[in-house]
């Protein structure tokens, strides 16, 4: 494929390589398979905001995580103990660090280059659900963190990562699933209003391993999460679900790459966002980028990805970029769907015409919209808490 020298962007996939930036470069990359990765922050150019993978992110609100943050604070990571759960604090020289993946953007690399110690949580057998709490460094501070979750072969575990607090955090979360293991992972972004979180999740699926990941993005000023799924052997199965509720001025960004490079693996992605803006304040914003790559070797792959955005009010903007690259014809199934719709006045009229007050009708519709995501959260208290949090978000503007 010939790419003209002047092409500023390639839909969805071109990374911030030296030279890929508009006006500087010769050739942007044409495929997710060519995505540049490195542990060293200096291997990446400082993004200017026009690169494909930064063009949606308000860099001015990143608190310098991409360029010159002091990383003077510390994010506390606390892990609930239990049988079959081993918690270690290790240095970057630990051989296991990096097994999950390699940073693919400058912020993730900055976090990798900066963290002082990593928390490694190993799940063995069938432990009771584990709760990991990540607390931001505090108002005005910046921090880098590193967390690795790993399973032993045939382990079955549930882990909830709850993230809250103030300040700015750049981090890497490695998930390394051993062969035949199964992990239910729930990650919540329940930050304070000032918080900024730029997180990179590296999800590495072993042979016949199963990942059921659900994320809930509710709080924070700016939350940008990148998820990369890789399969180390055939039979891997990854399901990534997520919900986001963006209110006035909030920027929630989810970018994922599912890299099918081995045969007989499955991926299923379903993300839903609701947006609710307010006149006179910056827009409520969501960004969803879903890249699925099926390489030539990945025969008999089955994949589907879906993004739905529900725009409840004016002063809101949702971007959705699904992208499917297929390099082999021998696949079991592949598809994607994306739709962004306004809250439907006809639905509201119908519900109200049966006596249901407007606020109750809106709650019914939003609860219904998120229902299939929330149903995946198997920890009842957590599901109830997130349902309450969504209703509280809805109540903010009294709608």
């Amino acid at each position, binding site marked *: 494929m010939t790419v003209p020298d002047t092409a500023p962007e390639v839909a969805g996939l071109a990374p911030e390589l030296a030279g890929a930036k508009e006006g500087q470069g010769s050739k942007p990359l044409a495929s997710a398979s060519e995505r540049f990765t490195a542990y060293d922050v200096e291997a990446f150019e400082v993004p200017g905001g026009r690169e494909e993978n930064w063009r949606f992110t308000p860099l001015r609100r990143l608190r310098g995580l991409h360029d010159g943050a002091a990383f003077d604070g510390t994010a506390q990571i606390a892990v609930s103990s239990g049988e079959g759960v081993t918690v270690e604090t290790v240095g970057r020289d630990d051989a296991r660090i990096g097994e999950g993946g390699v940073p693919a953007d400058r912020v993730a690399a900055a976090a990798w280059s900066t963290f002082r110690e990593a928390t490694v949580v190993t799940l063995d057998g069938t432990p009771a659900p584990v709760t990991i709490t990540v607390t931001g460094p505090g108002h005005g501070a910046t921090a880098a963190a590193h967390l690795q979750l790993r399973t032993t072969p045939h382990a079955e575990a549930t882990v909830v990562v709850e993230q809250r607090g103030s300040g700015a955090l750049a981090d890497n979360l490695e998930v390394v699933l051993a062969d035949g293991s199964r992990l239910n992972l729930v990650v919540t972004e329940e930050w304070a209003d000032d918080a900024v979180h730029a997180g990179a999740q590296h999800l590495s699926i072993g042979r016949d391993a199963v990942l059921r990941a659900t994320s809930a993005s509710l709080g924070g000023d700016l939350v940008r999460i990148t998820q990369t799924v890789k399969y180390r052997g055939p039979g891997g199965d990854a399901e990534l679900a997520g919900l986001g509720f963006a209110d006035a001025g909030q920027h929630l960004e989810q970018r994922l790459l599912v890299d099918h490079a081995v045969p007989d693996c499955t991926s299923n992605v379903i993300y839903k966002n609701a947006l609710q803006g307010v006149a006179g304040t910056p827009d409520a914003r969501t960004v969803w980028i879903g890249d699925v790559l099926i390489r030539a070797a990945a025969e008999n792959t089955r994949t589907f990805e879906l993004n739905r955005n529900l725009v409840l009010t004016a002063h809101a903007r949702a971007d959705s970029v699904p992208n499917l690259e297929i390099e082999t014809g021998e696949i079991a199934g592949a598809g994607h769907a994306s739709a962004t719709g306004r809250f439907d006045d006809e639905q509201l009229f*119908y519900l*109200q015409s*049966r006596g*249901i007050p407007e606020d*109750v*009708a809106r709650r*019914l519709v939003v609860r219904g919209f998120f229902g299939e995501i929330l149903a995946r959260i198997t920890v009842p208290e957590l599901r109830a808490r997130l349902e309450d949090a969504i209703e509280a978000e809805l109540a903010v503007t009294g709608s």
Partner: protein
Amino acid sequence: MSTLEITGLHVSVAADGGAKEILKGVDLTVRSGETHAIMGPNGSGKSTLAYAIAGHPKYEITAGNVTLDGQDILAMTVDERARAGLFLAMQYPVEVPGVSMANFLRSAATAVRGEAPKLRTWVKEVKGAMSDLDIDPDFAERSVNEGFSGGEKKRHEVLQLSLLKPKFAVLDETDSGLDVDALRVVSEGVNRFRADGDVGVLLITHYTRILQHIRPDVVHVFAGGKVVSTGGAELADELERNGYARFTTGAPAEAGV
């Protein structure tokens, strides 16, 4: 004993080139225990009357009154009208993805009755009402109207009617798109509603066949945005024989919903 009174009702909708008047002075009084059929050609404004009474935001009331036992319906929000005792069975019921029929019915019953129905009796009540209308119990778990056939949607409108027990029901072309069996089931549902309580029915239809199942006390012929003739059930028989031609000459048809 309740009275739904419509006087001098004028209704407009926004259209290219400004507001377009659809209803041009409707006068109509329905008392509980009565069934009134409103018949008229397409575009005569029948559905506009139904939606205007229910409070659809698309329709602007430019003159006239609608009262329920003296209360000003037009001053109420859509949900207040329903709680005051009005019900509109829609010609095209709206799909609400993600909201289960069961959840919707319970929310509506809670709103209309002023308190949540007791769970045990409620489940029994819903099952009974569904069975009366030949509705498969599985529908309770499906999203409201989503993927329902035309006939299934109409059955569910009548299901809501039977559970919410309004004082007045406006049935907007509930018979359209129904096969003979479905028409019978739906009509029986409406007749049960009529028999169960001291209620009034405003039956809007284009065809006379539903009137074989639901006998009206009064028949109004609607043309050009107003009632042009009123009579007993025999008026429907005349329409069956002669059509609307006698009423539409000189009254230009207007676009309705």
